[in-house]
């Protein structure tokens, strides 16, 4: 079991004929993902790794029944492509692309809400359900063959890999790893992804991998305190971040106490979450929570 994605999900790859699109399609197929179609306007009729390519999303959906889409589309085309994808009825979209203008993200977010679709990103590594399927760029070889019972939600990409691997090593492997993206405005909120895990009978507890900047963790803390019944482990990266400095992620900027590690940790701790001070501590806390051993 899992959230949002499993081995039966029919996946569409947009921008499949590009260099990154091709390489990642190969990795996703190798992991077991059921990729049924690709879209690159102007390249309809081609094949990439045996996957048929279409000119439009509507066509791809009609011909193959694709129900989820992952983007390897250049930043300047992402907004239009998201609108096209939502219009074609797709309800799960993973936007891997980084450096998307925030005004575009705000418009996409509004459109996604209207369409009642889950859009991950921008700047997300995607989603991986251990042992079943992955959409995006999370390397599969960091995880065991069979999924466990730990949900992972991460704002950062690379850190999601590390935490997923740490949980697996601790004997508490992830069920689904979700990257939500690290831009100042995200397409789906952390709390909304928590709701998916709340409803998943195969997930026993959730690990939140947050970072300095933005207020997603603070907003999620309110939801956890009020409604979320499963245990939560949280690690917030960036204790050594100097104030007022941008740390690569557009969202990771500390200004006058807002979005600081301290405010996030305090909010999550108050909501009952177990706080890890380093990524490795997540493994220790997960073992304590589940009684698992490495």
């Amino acid at each position, binding site marked *: 079991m899992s959230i949002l994605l499993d081995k039966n999900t029919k996946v569409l790859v947009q921008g499949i004929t590009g260099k990154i699109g091709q390489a990642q399609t190969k990795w996703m197929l190798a992991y077991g993902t059921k990729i049924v179609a690709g879209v690159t306007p102007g390249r309809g009729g081609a094949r990439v790794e045996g996957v048929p390519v279409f000119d439009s999303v509507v066509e791809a959906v009609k011909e193959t029944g694709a129900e989820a889409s992952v983007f390897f589309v250049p930043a300047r085309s992402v907004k239009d492509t998201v609108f096209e994808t939502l219009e074609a009825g797709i309800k799960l979209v993973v936007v891997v692309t980084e450096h998307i203008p925030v005004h575009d993200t705000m418009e996409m977010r509004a459109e996604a809400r209207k369409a009642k679709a889950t859009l991950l990103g921008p700047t997300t590594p995607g989603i991986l359900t251990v042992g079943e399927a992955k959409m995006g760029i999370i390397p599969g070889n960091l995880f065991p063959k069979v999924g466990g019972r730990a949900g992972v939600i991460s704002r950062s990409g690379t850190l999601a890999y590390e935490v997923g691997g740490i949980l697996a090593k601790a004997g508490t492997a992830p069920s689904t790893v979700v990257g939500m993206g690290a831009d100042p405005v995200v397409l789906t909120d952390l709390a909304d992804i928590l709701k998916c895990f709340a409803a998943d009978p195969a997930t026993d507890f959730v690990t939140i991998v947050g970072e300095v900047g933005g207020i997603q963790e603070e*907003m999620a803390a309110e939801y956890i305190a009020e409604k979320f019944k499963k245990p939560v482990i949280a690690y917030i990266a960036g204790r050594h971040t100097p104030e007022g400095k941008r740390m690569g992620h557009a969202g990771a900027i500390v200004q006058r106490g807002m979005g600081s590690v301290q405010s996030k940790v305090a909010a999550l701790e108050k909501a009952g979450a177990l706080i890890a001070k380093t990524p490795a501590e997540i493994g220790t806390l997960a073992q304590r929570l589940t009684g698992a051993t490495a």
Partner: protein
Amino acid sequence: MRLHEHEAASLFRQAGVPVAPFAVARTADEALAALEKVELPVVIKAQVLVGSRGKHGGILTAATADEVRTKTATLLGSAVRGFAVESVMVSKKVLIAQELYVGVTVDAVAGAITVILGTAGGIDVETVAKERPEALYRKTVVPPAELRGHEARLLAREAGFRGDLMVKIADVLIALYRVFRKSDAMIAEVNPLVVTPDENLWAVDAVLEVDDSALFRHPEMPKDTLARIDHPIERAAKQIGVSYVDLDGDIAIISSGAGLGMATMDVVGQRLKPANFLETGGGITEELMYKTTDLVLQKPGLKGLLINLYGGINPIHEGAKGIVRVLKEKRVKIPVVAKALGNRQEETWATLREAGVIIVTDITTEAAVDALCDALNH
């Protein structure tokens, strides 16, 4: 990218914001010539990209032409909060009955745009938000919607304004919202917006920060993005296409993601002192890694280098070749520890090992830091 006040002021004026008459001067003579366009008395403002200029001697007033010459000369030779003053803005000094705050910004909570009208302007708005939140009136707008006339008037009315003044304030809010949208801004702000005794409005300040990711569609924006970065290594990093932040310590760090980079700093910080934050993002090539490794090693007094990479979208086996080239060319003597996991990790390890890099295959960053401490006998 943050714009200079005079650049923002020009864009605001084009959009219909009533900006007090001004001219830009790079010499005292130019400031005198400005008086043909701008009536005395005037305010002379250092054009530097930092806030609180007033408190740090960057804003002076002048009532006579002589004062304009001497005070401009004073400012042009000086630095405000460490930023050299290369030009000043000469603006008409307006009479003040009340100072307001107007701002439009990206609101991370709503994932939308927030328009703010404050009845206590002229002071730091974050302080107002903390101490007198009741003085700030907000309206959330979900783009692509515009801020409509009636919405802006309602906001001004809620803030207690009536009659012509209410309408004029609403017009400023609408104009500011337009600039914000048109220029892909992160923030557009006037603080203060002055109400004169005869109830006219003058913007006597202009802040505009444009989203770097949107600059590709704004040919009208200044081209000197790089020159606006103060720190030389941070500037060079931007040129390469990576993010670098200078820190106090002596352990150089290279990571392939922002979150991983911050976590690496956290873990290194427990036992050693990070010299920098560096993240490559998803664009690793041999060349990018060559330039990046060369860059972080420029800082004097380094004791070690920690490389923390994941091969998801990044071809780390290509990146490894770039790292090795630098280590060989520069004959690097400090210990170099690498944790590189993911797609094609074995090839990556072999390339790095051959150049004497200590390879850590455990998934935890702690293990990499332990290995570095061992190498340093720390």
